[in-house]
């Protein structure tokens, strides 16, 4: 993956841009190189690039002022939450302003009556649940980075997590946003009511990867905590059996709160790392969580156990205490660091496939691993077919990054080939940008590009992300003049 060449004219104006930003956000500009080094990338760790300057606004008006400045001066601008993106969504540009939203971290309102919470974009995902759990509520999307990742970033990437099989992604739990647009205007969409009326811009704001605007406030749906949660593990001697089990659970009409898969390599790595007590002799392990009211959950636990055994599970165990349950999940959540000990670098892929394609895709990936000579393991959200193959490599070894990326690209192309998609919850960012044509034809991408133009005709918001090439917005800017009349002359135009 190549980073875009920096615009030397902008680099030459650096001092002037820094000075201007200091006037807009007096106490929130990072411009010395040691400070900027802290902002030189996100969780797509193979790519590092310090920004031209970093600005850390504390108010909506400051965000607007920075965006107005960026448009006026034609300087690219990259939004950043906590920098936990796995797809390089927050990767800075040498010729761009990085706008960090971390200081806007207040919870503005909790409204239990309407089951809504209003937060600033820099509030962390976990802090939302922490703020409401004493009243028995929680916020459902739970990406594994939830202790650090911010709501603004969650909206931008449409973050998911372990429990989105039953409770949906960020977009399904987002009631409203306020976004600052390029140029500084602010757009309010939705709120505590159902739906946002008019064209569903709230729907496209979620998952727009910072290409349409910068989230300055979000209203989120909060859920009552289910009274009972029970967690099982089922161990299989053959991976396809686990796939059958997943398909049969779904087909039986049960929607588990979570259904996670780990393969043998992952089990071994995790056992060495934190010993959650998984059976080491298994080729595949499923963790299934069921929640709800006691009798319903009890009935479902029995049915899932029966389905798992019928599919060939040699061990089916249930966590008998909250402590045991936490231990089972600790293993799953440690898959990343556990694999990280086996090699200095790691790529975490994120394709989604139809559940029925699981066995075939797993077999193909194992063959690819041999062909590329790179180790990998499989963890994934089995319930919704969202794969997270972890490829391990050493960036210092000649050619390994290229090989790892090629291996990853082959996995994602395979996902598309079997009817899936390039990204389930991490976003496209820079990581998968050049693979977009594997999934979308030229006309598909051009249409998305025209939507981008409607929000950002100058292409200054997070440029170089998501789309391999964005054609200039000239065509769109041209107004259609029908029979000599300017259409709707009395309408406001930005």
């Amino acid at each position, binding site marked *: 993956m190549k980073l875009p060449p920096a615009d030397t004219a902008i680099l030459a104006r650096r001092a002037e841009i820094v000075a201007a930003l200091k006037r807009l956000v007096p106490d929130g500009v990072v411009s010395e190189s040691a400070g900027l080094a802290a902002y030189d990338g996100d969780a797509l760790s193979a790519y590092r690039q310090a920004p031209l300057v970093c600005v850390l606004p504390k108010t909506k008006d400051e965000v607007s002022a920075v965006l107005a400045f960026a448009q006026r001066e034609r300087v690219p601008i990259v939004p950043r939450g906590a920098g936990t993106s796995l797809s390089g969504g927050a990767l800075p540009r040498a010729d761009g302003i990085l706008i960090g939203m971390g200081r806007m971290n207040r919870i503005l309102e909790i*409204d239990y*009556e*309407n089951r809504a919470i209003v937060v600033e974009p820099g509030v962390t995902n976990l802090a939302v649940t922490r703020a409401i759990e004493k009243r028995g*509520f929680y916020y459902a999307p739970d990406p594994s980075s939830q202790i650090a990742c911010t709501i603004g970033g969650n909206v931008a990437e*449409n973050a998911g997590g372990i429990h989105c099989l039953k409770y949906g992604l960020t977009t399904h739990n987002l009631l409203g946003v306020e976004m600052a*647009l390029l140029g500084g205007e*602010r757009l309010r*969409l939705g709120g*505590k*009511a*159902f*739906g*946002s*009326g*008019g*064209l*569903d*811009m*709230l*729907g*496209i704001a*979620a*998952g727009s990867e910072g*290409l349409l605007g910068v989230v300055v406030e979000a209203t989120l749906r909060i859920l*009552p*905590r289910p*009274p009972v949660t029970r967690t099982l593990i089922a161990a299989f001697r053959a991976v396809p059996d686990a796939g059958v089990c997943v398909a049969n659970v779904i*087909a039986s*009409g049960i929607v588990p709160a979570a259904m996670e898969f780990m393969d043998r390599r992952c089990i071994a790595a995790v056992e060495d790392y934190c010993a959650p007590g998984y059976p080491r002799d298994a080729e595949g392990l499923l963790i299934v969580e069921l929640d*709800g*009211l006691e*009798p*319903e959950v009890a*009935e479902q636990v029995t049915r899932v156990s029966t389905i798992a055994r019928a599919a060939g599970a040699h061990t089916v165990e249930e966590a008998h205490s909250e402590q045991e349950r936490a231990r089972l999940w600790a293993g799953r959540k440690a898959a990343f660091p556990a694999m990280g000990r086996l090699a200095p670098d790691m790529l975490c892929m994120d394709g*989604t496939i*139809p559940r029925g394609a699981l066995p075939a895709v797993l077999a193909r990936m194992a063959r690819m691993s041999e062909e590329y000579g790179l180790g990998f393991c499989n963890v994934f959200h089995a319930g*919704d*077919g969202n794969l997270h193959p972890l490829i391990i490599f050493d960036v210092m070894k000649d050619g390994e990054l290229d090989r790892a990326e090629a291996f990853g690209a082959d996995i994602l192309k395979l996902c598309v080939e079997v009817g*899936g998609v390039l990204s*389930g919850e*991490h976003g*496209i960012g820079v990581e998968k940008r050049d693979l977009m044509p594997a*999934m*979308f034809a030229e006309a*598909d991408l*051009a*249409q*998305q590009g*025209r*939507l*981008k133009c*409607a*929000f950002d005709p100058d292409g200054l918001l997070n440029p170089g992300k998501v789309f391999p090439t964005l054609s200039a917005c000239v065509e769109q800017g041209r*107004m*259609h003049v029908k029979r000599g009349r300017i259409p*709707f002359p009395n*309408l*406001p*135009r*930005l």
Partner: protein
Amino acid sequence: MILIPQNENELADMVRAAASDERSFEIVGRGTKRGLGRTVRADDVVDLSALSGIVRYEPNELVITARAGTRVAEIEAALAEKNQCLGFEPADWSAFYGTTGTATIGGVLSADASGSARLRFGAARDHLLGFAAVNGLGEIYKAGGRVVKNVTGFDLPKLFCGAMGTLGPLTEVTLRLVPRAVDCAVLAIRGVEPESGLEILRRIWSSPLEPTGLAYIPRLAAEDMFGDVGEGISLIRIEGAPAPLADKIGLLPTLLDGREATPLAHDNDIFARIASGAAIMHRKDDIWRAFVPPASAAACARKLAPAFWLADWAGGALWLAGVDDVQAVAQSFGGHALLMRADDATRMRVSVFPLEDPVRAALTQRIKEAFDPHRLFNPDRMFEGV
């Protein structure tokens, strides 16, 4: 002129021809919702009913793909055979608009016509995973995918739900499905005033009972539907397998402050009557829906003082008759409104869709232009120019 394309290529040809001839289209499926929106004055009608049929149904994936002109009833029948359904419970407004047709899936999605279970499973927009469509340049393109978890590019499927066809005709849609509940119970609490009746519904909404319908019917509407029930009636729909369902019903009294919830005899279709507008369509006046934060429902109804009303979605959706312009009041409560039924002149005079501030209005125009630069599709159906 009525154009009836037999496939998406024919439709794309028609769009290109319309662009060069500067002729606009009204897009219809089976024509059951032509009364919704501002009055469309288009040169031609394009009828998508021939783009019909289920393309691919994979029960194990909980996903179905169908052509946009497929009747919802056909899809629901196929799903029922596998004990699955559309979670948003498509609302059938055909009788409400005085038509005898049956709605198509493309039309239901374009109107985001969601029923009572929206409360539990989300709206139509939360169930459309991907689509194919024709844009205003006459190009066939696709967006989204066939899997439930997808952040590959902009989520155009959400933008198209509720866009009333103004961004172009859908030709094929892929939807997520949910397992159909084994059993269902509808319970009623009689003799409750709006404040307390809606407050009880919100308490159940915030409980782990996962209700799939919570409606409040005030005195006047309740008399129509049930005879004399005093002040009003709160309706609760709960689903599940038989034993867990019985358990959920058993838990209900703990949420009711000593009031009694009794099973309703002719149960499930009561929510269909609410969501389809059947409970209000006999009114002669204009009919609105207001979407407000549920806790504001009673106050909003009091302020509007409608001649006739009822509430769905735990108060989040109010059906109102005998009121004037609802938009401003709904907005003052942090919500928005939709003029569901009125004569042509009224629909051109008042804001059928929510009032937009200048920033949003300008974006709406630009998004329209991004999909339909020559403004061929459903001209003015949502807003002037859109």
